[in-house]
């Protein structure tokens, strides 16, 4: 405290600086979203004739249904939902089975196997696309989605499984549980926080996936919300009110999931640290 002439003054100044940075940062972070929403609510005439910061004089909600039908957003959102609903539970299941084998079973070379899985986190998807061309517009693409989620899923679940005390397994074995029962009735229920976190993180990354959909799901009826939105943008390059309405609509599912499961997000990401 010797360096500061008045400790209370110094502390108040640093508190003020903290709030100033946080508030300014928050404004910078919110402005783009606010701007998109404002644009989506204007008519084309308002947009052209008024200064950029003007609030819409009247709210034009009709941009939303128009974007929804013009952009076939319903189809794209349906496709993304279908992929997520199949991919996420199936992926988490195979990852949990593998993490169980790696941590709770007598598996020789478990560490080496884990290392091989980890390497996959670093392989760019681009390096696999050409050999996978059999999946062009093929529902089997779901396995490619699952495959690229496996390294991260195993990292998270293995990290969590390791924190569950071994005594619980021993007790289960004494009670006559087989491996399958031990997995389903002991480990999975105890790992619920990690499994829940993984579900959410995996859902978002599947929902937001772009490259696989861009390369393999090229038929218009099979496009996802990311590639479908790109198509929509390509068709309405200068119709900014409609375009921004489309952007707002495609943000909504992510925002809902985020708001509902915020707790799991933070614990999930933090869980990755403990690995």
């Amino acid at each position, binding site marked *: 405290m*010797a*360096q500061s002439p008045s400790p209370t003054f110094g502390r108040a100044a640093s508190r003020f600086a903290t709030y100033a940075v*946080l508030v300014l*940062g928050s404004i910078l*972070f919110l402005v*783009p*979203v606010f*701007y*998109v929403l404002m644009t989506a609510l204007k008519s084309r005439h308002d947009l052209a004739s008024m*200064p*950029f*910061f003007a609030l819409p004089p009247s709210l034009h909600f009709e941009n939303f249904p128009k974007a929804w039908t013009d952009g076939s957003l319903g189809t794209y959102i349906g496709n993304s939902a279908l992929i997520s609903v199949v991919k996420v539970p199936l992926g988490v*299941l*195979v*990852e949990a*089975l*593998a993490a169980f*084998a790696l941590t709770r*079973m*007598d*598996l020789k070379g478990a*560490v080496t*196997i*884990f*290392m091989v*899985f980890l390497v996959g*986190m*670093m*392989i*760019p998807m*681009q*390096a*696999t696309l*050409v*050999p*996978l061309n059999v999946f062009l517009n093929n529902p089997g693409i779901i*396995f490619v989605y699952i*495959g690229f989620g496996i390294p991260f899923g195993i990292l998270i679940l*293995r990290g969590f499984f*390791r924190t569950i005390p071994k005594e619980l397994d021993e007790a289960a074995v004494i009670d006559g549980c087989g*491996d399958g029962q031990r*997995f389903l009735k002991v480990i999975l229920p105890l790992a619920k926080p990690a499994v829940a976190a993984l579900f959410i993180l995996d859902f*978002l990354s599947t929902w*937001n996936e*772009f490259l696989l959909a861009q390369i393999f799901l090229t038929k218009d009826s099979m496009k996802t919300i*990311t590639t479908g939105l*790109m198509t929509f943008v390509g068709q309405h390059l200068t119709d*900014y009110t409609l375009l921004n309405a489309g*952007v707002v609509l*495609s*943000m909504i599912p*992510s925002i809902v*999931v985020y708001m509902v499961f915020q707790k799991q*997000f*933070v614990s999930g*990401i*933090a869980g*990755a*640290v403990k*690995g």
Partner: protein
Amino acid sequence: MSVRVRSLKPWLFLFPAAFIYMAVVLVPSLNTLVLSLFKWNGASPVMIFVGWDNYVKLFTEDTVFKLALTNTLLWTIASVLILTALALLMAMLLNQKIKGRLAFRSIFYFPSILSAVVVAITWRWMYHPQGLINGFLGLFGVGDNAPAWLAEPRSAMESVFVTSLWFGLGQPLVLFLAGLQTIARDPHEAAIIDGANAWQRFSRITIPMLRETLIIVLATVFVNGMRVYDLIFAMTGGGPAESTQVLSTWMYFQTFTFANVGVGAAISWILIAISMVVIIPYVRYTTKKSEQ
């Protein structure tokens, strides 16, 4: 007999994940390594073996590749330095007793839940010549001299990078916050009594105690930087005048637009090779840590 059956069982549990992972990640990427030694258009039955030719040509003849390589490296270095520092700064501000902590954290994390396409379209509109940024600059009378951001080679890459900070801050921020919360207060209080100033406490206590988190953040920021694709593709498509090409976008164009499959394959393996320099030590560190 029963002993042998038991030793096979873990493999049964491992099998689905291992099989899918090998079939869609490991084997195809090795297959791509083989493809990188051929000249092939992706459709014709004729594949001509050219050895290392694709690699040599990339480094000697393909000027866009050289630009893409430089851009990728600069982007990665800038991400590792700026994004990490920014996330650490914000995390330290948020790790104090302040009002609205959760609200601030949600706001800074929010862009991370969006898709790169949504972020790209949002910011294309922000950077539009009639968009918010130039409108704002116009209030100060610089509107006429303001750059066209994404439409000019001199500013396009920097503009996309700024967007990537907005998009990418959330994850390292939350990681740092989780790490900071595990640091006990005692060492800080002891250091204050011993007369350590804020910088000394930061460099001698916070940083060493955050070591594990720092390694994870640096590794993920590095990997994400090396393979950045969606955001650039959706914001500029590599343009204007190829000024925002990076390895992954140039790989896409070589493979899928120009049908130079061998060249594209070579680019993706150059990407892997560079990444390995950081990734192999990281994987070894992670597994070693988990052995303890």
